[in-house]
């Protein structure tokens, strides 16, 4: 096996002799470098040397040699070898290039080629053979393969078992975040309140941008909710603190917002009738006064009507026009969490596991069979319908769901993303996730299946990100963030360092971390539970430069005075006749081809829009709604107003960056939408620089402005003032950018058995490729 490798002098000296000799290692200075980079509280559990990481599916020539480590946080492969074939690496500060966080592991498969055996490793299992190969299937669709041909068989086995054990912990407190934060508290024991401010624990964290000092509201406090009420201009709503100390419900936040007309005392009484005591929670209010409210079902059949009536009346009273309440029963209108999960599993199989030759001809129907896109469509469609109720019918909307903590999270968020431009900024989007997911008790622990023993796994959060991506795809200029941001956010749910996506409810965080603190002798002081690092503190994961990739160059900032009678002010200069712009269609074309300019939209922004069709009198609500959508789509989009998705089958697309980023076959070198993103970034950056120049007082020389490049919000920057033309497309751009398929999707072998069969337990299983290489 080894002889197949191109000679690598640095390794030859210590690989040829039996591997376990310490003196050999000492004689090789390079080996000392193969030390893992550990975080506070992270410990190495087991390790094995002389491991080969497979890079390509069909050849071993690119394989890397190094050491495989299992810690209580991650699997780490440490190597001196440079990554082959890879032109770009998007670095996560918490993880090495080859690392996989334990919570990202989906399945561990060990293989022995000689005995033709394979085994899926669960926790506390025994392994009767020495593995020659370890395959890690990751929740983010990666497949990572290691070979142990040259490593000590016993150490290899131990590492495999350790990985199996530590990636499938029996208790929440065994997740790394506890160890990490515990260490942090200990290290800063002498500081007030245990933890230094601004160090992860603060939670708010900086926005993605370099200069932005804005913090994401976490909605843990009374004041965050109060500010949200004021921000939306909601009247008739108040912050309620009856759940302080989680006295009423353990799955509600301590503070939430309720109709002003409902007294605490009433709420306390009503709460008993709701599933999980989840009484109505205010989400958001439209400027017309309509409110979005979510609540669990009323389980008490006798009281149901009465309570329902009281709640609805209270919501009506909180509406300035005393409008009615529109109730939406999500359980009846949308796919349930099991269906979503089933769709996701099929999607994953389609995108990753099956060799593409198999699905080639049937790609579209296979995609349809997963139902994933149909579900995305259903959520978007339903949310858009609720937007209509809130925006056009001026009705308050109540989302009803059994527990009110799954589908409601997704729908409530989507409705707000569509209605409120604030939630289309980075800070706003993060606050939305805090408000409607983290604080509202979305069960991240179960749904992400961090403990891998839950039957309750369901990727609703991903579905939300995907649906947001669809909106972003359809309205690229309406969002401050990029699709990279969404993908990275999804990945962050798999990093067990952060508290954000670790728990089933805020109460669980407090309870579990208090227990942990007591057991570790950590003084909590006034704090309610330990302060875990927040995902929103992006500086923990990415450098300032890398965070600029989160910014969408299309985005038009709110500060731009552009909303004016539904059209953009800057484009209102229609009186000024540009030679070729406003002539409408070229003369000859007008004659027959495009009698109606609208039919072939071109430079919409500059063409005076025809008046929307006059509203027609129709009886049924459906056609009213249709009318509303039609009218909306016939007007130019106000990027700082409502945005609606097109939801016909033609418009819902597969989020390729997320699902295809590891698939080598899907990679277009120097192509894909990233090349347009790149060009636009340059343009946006140039505009930024020029605005700065304009604003600057005459005192400073021009060069100084270009010197402030650190301030740029764009990842790709226009070069200096004198050579703007030299910025070609960087060589490393590909449709997967900033991710790279290299070594991340090592399907077992093209010649081997498709994984689908393998997972369903096929026993006879052999890689001819591996054996062929075996001499």
């Amino acid at each position, binding site marked *: 096996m080894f002889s197949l490798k191109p000679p690598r002098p640095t390794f030859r000296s210590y690989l040829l002799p039996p591997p376990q000799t310490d003196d050999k290692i000492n004689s090789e200075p390079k080996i000392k470098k193969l030390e893992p980079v550990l975080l506070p509280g992270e410990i190495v559990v087991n390790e094995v040397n002389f491991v080969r990481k497979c890079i390509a599916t069909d050849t071993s020539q690119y394989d890397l040699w190094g050491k495989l480590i299992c810690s209580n946080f991650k699997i780490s492969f440490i190597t001196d070898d440079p990554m082959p074939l890879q032109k770009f690496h998007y670095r996560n500060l918490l993880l090495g290039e080859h690392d996989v966080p334990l919570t990202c592991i989906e399945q561990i498969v060990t293989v022995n080629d000689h005995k033709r055996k394979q085994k899926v490793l669960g926790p506390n299992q025994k392994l009767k053979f020495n593995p020659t190969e370890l395959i890690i299937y990751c929740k983010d669709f990666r497949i990572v393969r290691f070979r142990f041909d040259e490593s000590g068989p016993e150490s290899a086995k131990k590492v495999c078992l350790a990985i199996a054990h530590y990636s499938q912990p029996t208790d929440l407190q065994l997740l790394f975040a506890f160890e990490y934060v515990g260490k942090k508290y200990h290290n800063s024991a002498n500081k007030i309140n245990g933890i230094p401010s601004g160090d992860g624990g603060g939670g708010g964290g900086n926005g993605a941008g370099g200069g932005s000092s804005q913090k994401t509201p976490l909605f843990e406090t009374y004041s965050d909710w109060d500010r949200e009420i004021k921000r939306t201009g909601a009247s008739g709503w108040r912050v309620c603190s009856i759940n302080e100390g989680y006295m009423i419900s353990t799955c509600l936040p301590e503070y939430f917002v309720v109709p002003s007309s409902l007294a605490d005392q009433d709420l306390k009484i009503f709460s008993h009738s709701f599933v999980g005591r989840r009484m109505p929670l205010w989400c958001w209010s439209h400027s017309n006064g309509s409110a979005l409210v979510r609540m669990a079902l009323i389980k008490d059949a006798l009281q149901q009507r009465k309570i329902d009536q009281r709640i609805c009346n209270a919501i009506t009273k909180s509406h300035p026009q005393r409008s009615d309440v529109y109730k939406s029963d999500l359980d009846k209108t949308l796919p349930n969490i099991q269906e979503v999960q089933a769709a996701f599993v099929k999607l994953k199989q389609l995108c990753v596991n099956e060799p593409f030759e198999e699905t080639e001809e049937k790609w579209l129907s296979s995609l*349809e069979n997963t139902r994933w896109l149909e579900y995305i469509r259903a959520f978007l469609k339903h949310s858009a319908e609720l937007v209509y109720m809130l925006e056009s019918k001026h009705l308050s909307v109540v989302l009803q769901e059994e527990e009110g903590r799954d589908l409601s999270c997704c729908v409530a968020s989507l409705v707000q993303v569509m209605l409120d431009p604030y939630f289309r900024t980075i800070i706003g989007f993060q606050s939305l996730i805090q408000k409607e997911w983290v604080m509202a008790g979305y069960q991240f622990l179960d749904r992400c299946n961090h403990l891998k023993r839950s039957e309750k796994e369901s990727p609703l959060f991903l579905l939300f990100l995907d649906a947001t991506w669809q909106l972003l795809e359809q309205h690229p200029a309406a969002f401050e963030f990029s699709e990279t941001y969404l993908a990275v956010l999804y990945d962050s749910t798999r990093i067990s360092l952060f508290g954000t996506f670790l728990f089933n409810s805020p109460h669980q965080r407090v309870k579990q971390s208090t227990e942990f603190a007591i057991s570790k002798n950590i003084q909590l002081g006034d704090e309610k539970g330990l302060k875990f690092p927040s995902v929103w503190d992006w500086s923990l994961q990415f450098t300032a430069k890398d965070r600029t990739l989160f910014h969408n160059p299309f985005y038009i900032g709110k500060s731009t005075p552009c909303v004016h009678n539904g059209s953009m002010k800057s484009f209102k200069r229609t009186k000024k006749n540009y030679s070729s712009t406003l002539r409408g269609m070229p003369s000859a074309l007008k004659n*027959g081809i495009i009698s109606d300019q609208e039919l072939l939209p071109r430079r919409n922004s500059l063409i005076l829009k025809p008046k929307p069709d006059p509203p027609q009198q129709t009886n049924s609500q459906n056609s009213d709604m249709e009318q509303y959508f039609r009218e909306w789509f016939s007007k130019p989009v106000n990027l700082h107003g409502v945005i609606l998705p097109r*939801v016909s*089958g033609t418009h819902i697309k*597969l989020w390729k960056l997320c699902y295809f980023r590891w698939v080598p076959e899907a990679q277009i070198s120097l192509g894909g939408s990233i090349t347009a993103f790149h060009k636009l970034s340059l343009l946006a950056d140039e505009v930024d620089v020029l605005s700065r120049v304009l*604003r600057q007082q005459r005192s400073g020389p*021009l060069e100084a402005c270009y010197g402030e490049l650190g301030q740029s919000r764009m990842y790709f920057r226009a070069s200096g003032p004198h050579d*703007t033309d030299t910025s070609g497309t960087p060589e490393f751009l590909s449709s997967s950018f900033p991710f790279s398929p290299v070594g991340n999707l090592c399907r077992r072998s093209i010649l081997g058995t498709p994984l689908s069969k393998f997972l369903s337990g096929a026993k006879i299983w052999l890689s001819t490729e591996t054996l062929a290489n075996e001499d």
Partner: protein
Amino acid sequence: MEHIRTPKVENVRLVDRVSPKKAALGTLYLTATHVIFVENSPDTRKETWILHSQISTIEKQATTATGCPLLIRCKNFQIIQLIIPQERDCHDVYISLIRLARPVKYEELYCFSFNPMLDKEEREQGWVLIDLSEEYKRMGLPNHYWQLSDVNRDYRVCDSYPTELYVPRSATAHIIVGSSKFRSRRRFPVLSYYYKDNHASICRSSQPLSGFSARCLEDEQMLQAIRKANPGSDFVYVVDTRPKLNAMANRAAGKGYENEDNYSNIKFQFIGIENIHVMRNSLQKMLEVCELKSPSMSDFLWGLENSGWLRHIKAIMDAGIFIAKAVSEEGVSVLVHCSDGWDRTAQVCSVASLLLDPHYRTLKGFMVLIEKDWISFGHKFNHRYGNLDGDPKEISPVIDQFIECVWQLMEQFPCAFEFNERFLIHIQHHIYSCQFGNFLCNSQKERRELKIQERTYSLWAHLWKNRADYLNPLFRADHSQTQGTLHLPTAPCNFMYKFWSGMYNRFEKGMQPRQSVTDYLMAVKEETQQLEEELEALEERLEKIQKVQLNCTKVKSKQSEPSKHSGFSTSDNSIANTPQDYSGNMKSFPSRSPSQGDEDSALILTQDNLKSSDPDLSANSDQESGVEDLSCRSPSGGEHAPSEDSGKDRDSDEAVFLTA
């Protein structure tokens, strides 16, 4: 005119496709060239024009209480549903349109009456805009290996080929003529594209008349000559773009494909692209999906897959990629054929050329490509696109598929093409519209006989004149991505190909992005250009004023020291100094050095001038960020509006309308 039974029907309703309950009331006019529907609604008076040549099918549906519905499907994928109150009127319209949509003589086509108000000279210039001999020169021909042959002078050898053909130098007239006799419709192997970098070439022909065992020495010599014209390689790929089964079936008819044993040094390869009939049906099925009102995911995905359309697109792309790789990476010449060598061969050769040569990815280059591989080599436009009444089985969306391949590539490489989607859509439209003479007839010979160039106008000139509408703002000719071969995976998977809603659903309201990013960028770009021009003009004016005032200012400035200072300090806070900053940043701005003229007075003048032209300027710019800045910052006053935009163009439209 004699076919128009009724020129005008009132109280016709045009049904809204999205919500059928809504219909616009108006009047329907039939003219010699168009169907025109004019809405009654006084504030819009919206007009819908449909060219007769765009009409694909007309369907008279069962009469209802409201009237008699008439469904018109167009070749550009527009669907019009009219409800005509009287059955008799409907029948008249129906019968008239059936005849009008299927002209029997070329002279009936729109291009012979279309008059864009250009004089003779302009028309002639239009026709020479795209010059194929220039194109062969650009490729580096003639050279040591290839020469221009006059063997097809007066179309003596092959009447569907052009007269000017490039063949290997070693191919004598004897070989050519011999080979032509062994090829379907005498379409012998000729050069389509020559790859300068390594002498490899793409040649095209029709299938050989090999039957089960026939051979032809000259044809074998012809292929040998093609191989010899590429000294770097010792074999030639022969690519038969048909499915193997089809090719084999042809053998029974005395046609077929090359036998590797008979030809020395060829490698034979089938690439299964289906025939025109399969493609026609496939498009039909896909259009049925497009007609669905609000398709669910499964309607759409299943329908799309069952149509097979994207699979066919992929087959064409795969063939193109194979050839491009053979030429650029292996340095091997390729001979491409299908049956007659005018459908699949045209598709594949042009896709390969587009991948290989960045020139074809420019506006003009793309016109050249269509002119070369399609028009000159006798793609049967008249038959395929049904310009004249003919055999419906001959109709097939062959060039539509090529145009879609280009769009698919544009989606994968958004910055690699100089033109945009609109360009493709307009070309597609005019292939069917018969408004210009370019795509008339089935061959160059027919076009010459008909004196097309003397009697009609060229589309290319028209597109070129309006090129500002067709530019891709992301394209930069000097960028590495826009140079050289496009690098595709060997056979991109099916999921790389997408449904082109911009083409097939282009008439569906609400289906298209309202604010296309491309349009947005183009607007920004255009505004920037306008501003630059304006700035230049202002600066010129400023300089003039300066010269006049220079002396007097010099005198004055000495006397009014304090006021000059205050003027200077205000300019610090405002952005009156914009032009100077700009000139430092953007190359294209005329640079003014600070030492030029009397600095102080120049500054004051600049400030005044800007203030008068844009009161909002300083107020806005400080709060703004983002792309919009470019457009926001511009003066909005009307006084600088270019006055050239008169109603000239509209006039010409009406002229046509009247003559019609």
